[in-house]
């Protein structure tokens, strides 16, 4: 839920250029959810964007799911570019796509959302060095910095800060925003890309945003609410 405002801006704020009726359209902008455990958010967003009917969401995590709505995304689902679920791979894959399309479709962009805990994976920093080396300005990384991982607060698990300094040192242009302030999100996403450096948007977010008893709570990382909690949550979100 921490990344809901970010995906809303990307898909419904005229940032991502896509055709949900032609998911593989050449020259489309690409979106990758590297933190695959937020699959529910991605599937809901894709349904809302018209990739598939909302009724199909009932198949989520169920066997024989028609659209392969697995617990973590897979490209069999319309609108999904790559499988995820093992953290740390998405930035590299997004960069590969960026390298692959940059000559043919110079205006197309590749966006990838990573979690803050995910930045503990070394591969993220390998990819960060690669994108800087190849001056991949068509690659835009977004860190959903909700500060909570499965076991612990991210800072207690293994601190990833100072994030801006780190990304800057790796050769990236760095923006830091409030990931729930829509005008800040839109400003960051609409800012024209530079000529030299890939861009990272560090979005400070709140885990479980909008539901008072979930906000910032480690305990809700991968747990579904029971009927009573669900009703309470929906009431708050309404």
């Amino acid at each position, binding site marked *: 839920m921490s990344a809901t405002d970010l995906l809303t801006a990307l898909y419904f704020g005229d940032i991502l250029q896509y055709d949900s009726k032609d998911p593989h359209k050449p020259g489309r902008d690409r979106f990758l959810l590297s933190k695959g455990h937020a699959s529910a958010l991605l599937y809901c967003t894709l349904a809302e964007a018209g990739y598939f009917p909302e009724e199909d969401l009932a198949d989520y995590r169920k066997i024989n799911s028609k659209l392969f709505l697995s617990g973590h995304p897979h490209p069999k689902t319309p609108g999904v570019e790559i*499988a995820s679920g093992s953290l740390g*791979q998405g930035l590299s894959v997004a960069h590969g796509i960026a390298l*692959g399309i940059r000559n043919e479709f110079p205006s197309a962009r590749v966006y990838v959302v990573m979690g803050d805990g995910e930045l503990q994976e070394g*591969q993220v920093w390998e990819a960060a060095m690669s994108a800087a080396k190849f001056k991949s300005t068509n690659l835009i990384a977004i860190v959903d910095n909700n500060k909570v991982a499965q076991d612990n607060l991210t800072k207690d698990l293994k601190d990833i800060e100072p994030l801006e300094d780190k990304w800057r040192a790796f050769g990236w242009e760095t923006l830091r925003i409030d990931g729930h302030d829509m005008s800040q999100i839109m400003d960051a996403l609409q800012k024209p890309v530079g000529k030299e450096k890939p861009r990272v948007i560090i979005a400070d977010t709140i885990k479980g945003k909008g539901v008072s008893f979930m906000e910032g709570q480690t305990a809700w990382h991968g747990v579904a609410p029971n009927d009573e909690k669900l009703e309470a949550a929906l009431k708050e979100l309404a």
Partner: protein
Amino acid sequence: MVDGATRDGYGAGLVELGTSNPNVVVLDSGVSDSTRSKKFGDKFPDRFFNMGISEGDMVCTAAGLAQAGKIPFATSFACFLLGRSMDQTLVSVAYSNTNVKLVGTHSGLAVGEDGPSAQMIVDIAYTRAIPNMTVIQPADWEEARQATIALANYKGPAYMRLGRSNVKGIYDPKTYKFEIGKASVIKQGSDAVVFATGSMVEETMKALEQLGTEMNVTVVNVSTLKPLDEATIIDQVGKNKIVITAEDHNRIGGLGDAVCEVLMNHQICKPFKRIAVNDTFAETGSASELYEKYGLSANHIVRALREVKA
């Protein structure tokens, strides 16, 4: 026949692809001179990505390039390529079913003096066990060149296992036609069949010279390890009295196990012996010394043929 290392055949194949297929791109992780991917990089610098010493990043970048419509060959030493990117190979390549060609050079004990950390002996087992993966190990320069081109024309994830050392040419470039999924009968006999792969095909040919007219041995080059050419294996086992497999790889999960599985599935029982690394890490030394000490040399193949016959 062209003598040379399979990695050199790969380099030559890549250069051909550079001209014939504009979608082919090549990645390396900082060892392109040794893997021969540099041959491509020198001629087609815009389609060559040296990712530095970061194999996991390289494999996932290749997956991204594939999802952008390219045909990426991601190259490194076999030990690092798969050792450092098992998870990336599973998720971003095989499970995502991306059109990535992983190419690992310097495989097996044949890499020699660099020692066990560089001697990749579990890659066939690992890649064969991954759904969606095709696994290839060419036996000479020409087969490596053709396999490289065949892989570019094949859609789907694949691993190609190559060697560092020169091997004697087996195939005539004018007549040989490599096909993914087809084993090739190099010599037809009737007493025994040796199913060999990679550098062990040359070792088997040396064994035949030693045997002279003592035994009439069939030699089959199993260059596609997955999918296995079951028809040829069953046919040749039927035509011969004893069965030997030969690979520069651990005996668990390699060619020997694969052939056993075929025979068991078809309830075929014949005298059988595996030539392979005996589930141990080796040591430093020259390739030929290691082959002798760890049971892979022509002498061991000769001994196996005589023992099983008796």
